[in-house]
């Protein structure tokens, strides 16, 4: 396989479809109880929320969680993201809405201090099911990588980022994901309703 075809393969989402390695069979079996499910909560991240409280990212474990990233000084896409999430919530059944939690983590911990997030929480008009949060730079990078969010700070202090909204199940596994603010959200809503129905 040439490098170019490797690139194409990955684009096709088949990065590990083929196993050209004969020596691979010798791998020891996964030990019992090993977490083979991909859970965002295994990142082990800690955040500080807009009430100033230090919490683990899995603070809402057991519930469906909508998670995304934003930054407070962003004046266009980020308010749109919040608006999109609110609109999405407005389409939910009362039960699903009550079960769902929302976690928005800042790309920009230097400017999005807990105090700044507190102000934003008022601007955004969020209720108690929502958390605006910040964490350290290392964790921002890890979280963005795990959520498949691409971002880059520009020299003027603004940043470019992709808008990805992810739905996590109670164990922190990705249940649905939408990329881009114009993307239809019906499939995600359907998934969210199903997860909420499971929750007593």
């Amino acid at each position, binding site marked *: 396989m040439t*490098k170019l075809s490797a690139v194409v393969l*990955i684009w096709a989402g088949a990065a590990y479809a083929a196993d050209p390695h004969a020596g691979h069979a010798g791998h020891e*079996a996964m030990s019992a109880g090993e*977490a083979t499910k991909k859970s965002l909560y295994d990142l082990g991240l800690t955040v500080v929320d807009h009430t100033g409280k230090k919490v683990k990212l899995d603070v809402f474990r057991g519930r469906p969680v909508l998670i995304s990233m934003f930054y407070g000084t962003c004046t266009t896409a980020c308010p*749109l993201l919040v608006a999109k999430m609110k609109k999405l919530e407005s389409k939910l059944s009362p039960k699903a809405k009550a079960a769902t939690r929302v976690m928005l983590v800042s790309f920009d911990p230097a400017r999005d201090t807990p105090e700044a997030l507190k102000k934003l929480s008022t601007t955004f008009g969020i209720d108690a099911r929502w958390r605006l949060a910040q964490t350290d730079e290392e964790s921002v990078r890890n979280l963005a990588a795990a959520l498949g969010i691409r971002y880059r700070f520009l020299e003027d202090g603004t940043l470019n980022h*992709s808008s990805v909204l992810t739905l996590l199940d109670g164990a922190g596994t990705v249940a649905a994901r939408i990329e881009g603010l114009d993307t239809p959200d019906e499939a995600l809503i359907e998934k969210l309703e199903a997860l909420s129905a499971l929750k007593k």
Partner: protein
Amino acid sequence: MRVAAFLLLTAGLSAAAEDGGLVQVGPGVYRPIYPAAPGETEVALPAFFLDVLPVTNGDYLKFVTAQPEWRSDRIKRIFAEPGYLRHWSGPLKPGQAGLDEPVRFVSWFAARAYCSSRGARLPTEAEWELAAAADETQRDARRTDAFRQRLLAWYAQPNPQTLPAVGAGKPNVWGVEDLHGLLWEWVLDYGNTMISSDSRDGKDPSGQRFCGAGAANASEKDDYPSFMRIAFRSSLEGSYTIGNLGFRCARDGKGAGR
């Protein structure tokens, strides 16, 4: 040529000063073929230290032995897909994978953890590209036909089943080896590439990542090797493990000349 010899010498000296495995690269100016913004066609980089060689299976074996949560049978799935270290015969057995060969089938999360265990970090894309723009005699050889041809010839070759040992190539002008010709390498900010469109307009930038209009904004339209690297990186996710993708570590250039 004398200048090049002098540079080679200073690179060698700073290597000795810092650590056996790292050499000073830069300060320098990185000219991205895909500037993040119209005003960012030149990025001034302070000096930093970079591993002379890619991390080997032997190095990585020591790491997973010391930090067993990164063994292939214990790693959390969020950090690496199931192909992690698949070329080894067991969690602590490189098997047929030579200890001097570069480690591969490692995710970005795992590469970061390895570098962090050494008090180092992954190089940024700008740093890696600055180091990799050099050949044996010039700091920026990207416009040199022979250099481009060498890279393209490598990119066109099929991936071998086993990789050669590290350190077989010649050091570039900074004293760094194997940046080309052995395998691709992770960078810290692999996810930043080609987000040149402004996401703040509320549209997903991915649609504009690969289009012709975007490419027309690039500063070096015939620097095909750089395009290939950017395309490759922009296709990656942090948990991917790939047979021709390894890494090396870097450190901030504290005390390095500017």
